[in-house]
């Protein structure tokens, strides 16, 4: 009985000292994906991240931007995540590998089995990459993919 208590005490100390024990974990990355509908209907800006506002104005000539969805995706090396986006499109993100601060990513936008956009890219800093073109309603979808620290 006494031995059992001692064993449980050591076990508890062990769990408290080494909470992450259980094998080495693959490095993970968090990506922020903002799905923005760009159109020429109105002149409203409805974005969660105000930093995108200036970038979108400089990059495109649309008059209205509305963030329709926002996602945070946590990926481990070699892992894949499917995100359903408006207009029956799917965004499939695959974290190919991590090399220090550099992230090698595969992004695929597809609809009904057709590849709308298939790209491989590497992200180094906090600069977002804008993937665009999927038509929706009277505008186009713009996907801002950004690496989170």
């Amino acid at each position: 009985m006494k031995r059992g208590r001692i064993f449980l005490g050591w076990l508890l100390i062990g769990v408290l000292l080494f909470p992450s024990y259980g094998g080495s974990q693959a490095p993970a990355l968090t990506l922020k994906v903002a799905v923005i509908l760009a159109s020429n209907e109105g002149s409203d800006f409805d974005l969660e991240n105000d930093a995108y506002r200036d970038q979108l104005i400089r990059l495109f000539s649309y008059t209205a931007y509305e963030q329709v969805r926002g996602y945070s995706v946590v990926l481990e090396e070699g892992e894949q995540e499917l995100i359903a986006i408006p207009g029956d499109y799917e965004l499939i993100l695959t974290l190919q590998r991590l090399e220090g601060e550099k992230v090698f990513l595969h992004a695929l936008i597809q609809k009904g089995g057709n590849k709308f956009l298939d790209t491989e890219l590497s992200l180094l800093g906090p600069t977002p990459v804008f993937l665009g073109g999927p038509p929706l309603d009277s505008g186009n979808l713009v996907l801002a993919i950004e690496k989170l620290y």
Partner: protein
Amino acid sequence: MAAGEEEKKIRELFKTYMAEELKHPEIGRRKKAFIQEHFAPHIPFVLRPALLVPTLSFIFICVLALQLMKPVTKPIPQVALKETVKPKTLERTPFEEGDLGVQVKQVSSDMGSTLVFQKSSQGVPVIVIWVFTGGSNQ
């Protein structure tokens, strides 16, 4: 004759008085102090207290007007002009690959033509990968 003698007497008295005053300078100083105390000195018309403020204001306005007119009439020195109008040459530094936060390895699409373009936003190069489907309004 009496008048002539009286005149002589007055002259003698005056001479004596003047001689006494010269002998004792203290008398002269007292006289001067008395005059300064009881008789106001002559002030020019424009410097009288009632007119002093308007006079000074007028002078100030005149000086100000002259200062404002100066740059209009004064020719611009050629040396200064050459220095200020000297054109500056802007040096453009090309983008280095290391500056880009994003590098695109491969792009393809079954739906239309693709375009990868880079634009600087607030000094930060931003990458856009776009698919032109033809019917859209981009």
